[in-house]
C-alpha cells in the first residue's frame, strides 16, 4: 500500500523543501521506493536542493498535460537507490495543476509500486498548497519556533482537517509536527519558543526537532540532501524522523544546550 505524505507549513521559508528532500532520501535509503514531487509551480527548487537540476527535461505539468510520460519526467537519484524526483514546472500559469491531473499522476505512481509519495508544498494557503495536501494520507507540518510560523501551521492544520480529500470523505489526515531551525540555547535563554510549548499550542504529535545547523546550507550548496551528511546534527535528526515515521521508538536528540567542552568540563566533569 502506498502512502502520500505532504510536507506543508503555510508560512514560507521554514524548511519544507529541505525536509522533503531529507525525508524522501531517508525513506529511500531504508529501501522504500520513494517519489518526491515538487508542487511549487513557478518556483522550482527541490531539484536544486537534491542536486539534479541539470537533469530536468520534463516536469510535473508536462506529465499532466500529456506532453511527456511520467517515466520520462521522473529523475532517478544517482546517490540513493529507490529515490525519484518529479520536478515542478517553471510556468507562471497558476492553474497548471488540476485536481484530476494531480490525481492521475499520484495514481500512476501508486500503480508503479511506489511505497511513499512525498509532496513538497509551496508556501501559502492558495491553490498550489491546496493541491499538494488534497490527496495526502499523512502530513508533516513544518514549524519554526516563531509566532507567525506557529500561527500559520495552525491554519494549515485547519485546512487539512476540513478540505483534504480524506476530510471530505469523512476521514482524517494523520498529522505530524516537525519543528525545524531549533536553537536550544535560545530556548534556554527565554527568547525562543520551546518545543513543549509549540506542541501544547498546536496539539499535534511531534515527529521530530531539527536543530538550526550550518550543515543545512552546506548541503544545499552542494546539492546533497543533509541526511547523507552523517556528521551533521540536522542530518541525524532527520534520520531519526524517518525512523519514527516508520514506527521505531527513537528518543529526541539535539534538543538541549550542548555542554561546552573545555575549561569547566575539565574542572568539574
Amino acid at each position: 500500500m502506498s502512502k502520500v505524505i505532504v510536507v506543508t507549513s503555510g508560512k514560507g521559508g521554514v524548511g519544507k523543501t529541505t525536509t522533503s528532500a531529507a525525508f524522501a532520501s531517508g525513506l529511500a535509503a531504508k529501501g522504500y521506493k520513494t517519489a518526491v514531487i515538487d508542487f511549487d509551480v513557478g518556483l522550482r527548487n527541490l531539484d536544486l536542493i537534491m542536486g539534479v537540476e541539470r537533469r530536468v527535461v520534463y516536469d510535473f505539468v508536462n506529465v499532466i498535460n500529456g506532453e511527456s510520460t511520467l517515466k520520462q519526467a521522473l529523475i532517478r537519484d544517482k546517490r540513493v537507490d529507490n529515490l525519484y524526483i518529479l520536478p515542478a514546472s517553471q510556468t507562471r500559469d497558476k492553474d497548471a495543476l488540476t485536481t484530476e491531473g494531480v490525481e492521475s499522476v499520484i495514481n500512476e505512481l501508486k500503480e508503479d509500486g511506489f511505497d511513499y509519495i512525498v509532496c513538497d508544498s509551496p508556501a501559502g494557503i492558495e491553490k498550489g498548497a491546496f493541491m499538494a495536501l488534497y490527496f495526502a494520507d499523512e502530513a508533516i507540518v513544518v514549524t519554526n519556533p516563531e509566532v507567525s510560523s506557529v500561527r500559520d501551521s495552525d491554519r494549515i492544520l485547519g485546512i487539512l482537517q476540513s478540505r483534504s480529500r480524506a476530510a471530505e470523505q469523512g476521514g482524517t489526515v494523520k498529522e505530524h509536527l516537525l519543528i525545524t531551525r531549533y536553537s536550544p540555547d535560545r530556548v534556554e535563554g527565554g527568547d525562543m519558543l520551546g518545543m513543549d510549548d509549540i506542541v501544547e499550542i498546536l496539539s499535534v504529535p511531534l515527529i521530530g526537532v531539527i536543530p538550526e545547523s550550518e550543515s543545512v546550507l552546506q548541503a544545499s550548496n552542494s546539492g546533497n540532501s543533509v541526511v547523507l551528511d552523517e556528521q551533521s546534527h540536522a542530518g541525524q535528526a532527520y534520520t531519526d524522523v524517518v525512523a519514527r515515521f516508520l514506527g521505531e521508538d527513537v528518543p529526541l536528540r539535539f534538543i538541549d544546550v550542548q555542554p561546552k567542552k573545555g575549561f569547566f568540563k575539565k574542572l568539574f566533569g
Partner: protein
Amino acid sequence: MGLFSFFKQEKKKDTATLAKERLQILIAHEHADNRKRAPDYLPKLRDEILGVIRKYVHVNENDVNVKVEKGTDYDVLELNITLPEAK
C-alpha cells in the same frame, strides 16, 4: 537558593513566554471564529433550494432564508420560506 536564582526571579517575563501566551489567545479566537462561520456550501444550497421551490410556486429571492445554528452537540439547518399569500 543562591544569588543567581534570586536574580532570575527578578527578571521580567521572557519573550518566549509572552509569545506562547499571545499565540494561545489568538489561536483560541481564530478557532472560535471558524466554528461560528457558516459552512461554505450555504449560498449554493440556498440557490438550489430556491430553484426547486420555484418549480412549484413563485417566491422572491428574499423569501428563502437558510441558516445554520451551531449547537454544542449538533448543528441545526434552519430553512424559512415565505410563500406568497393565497389569492
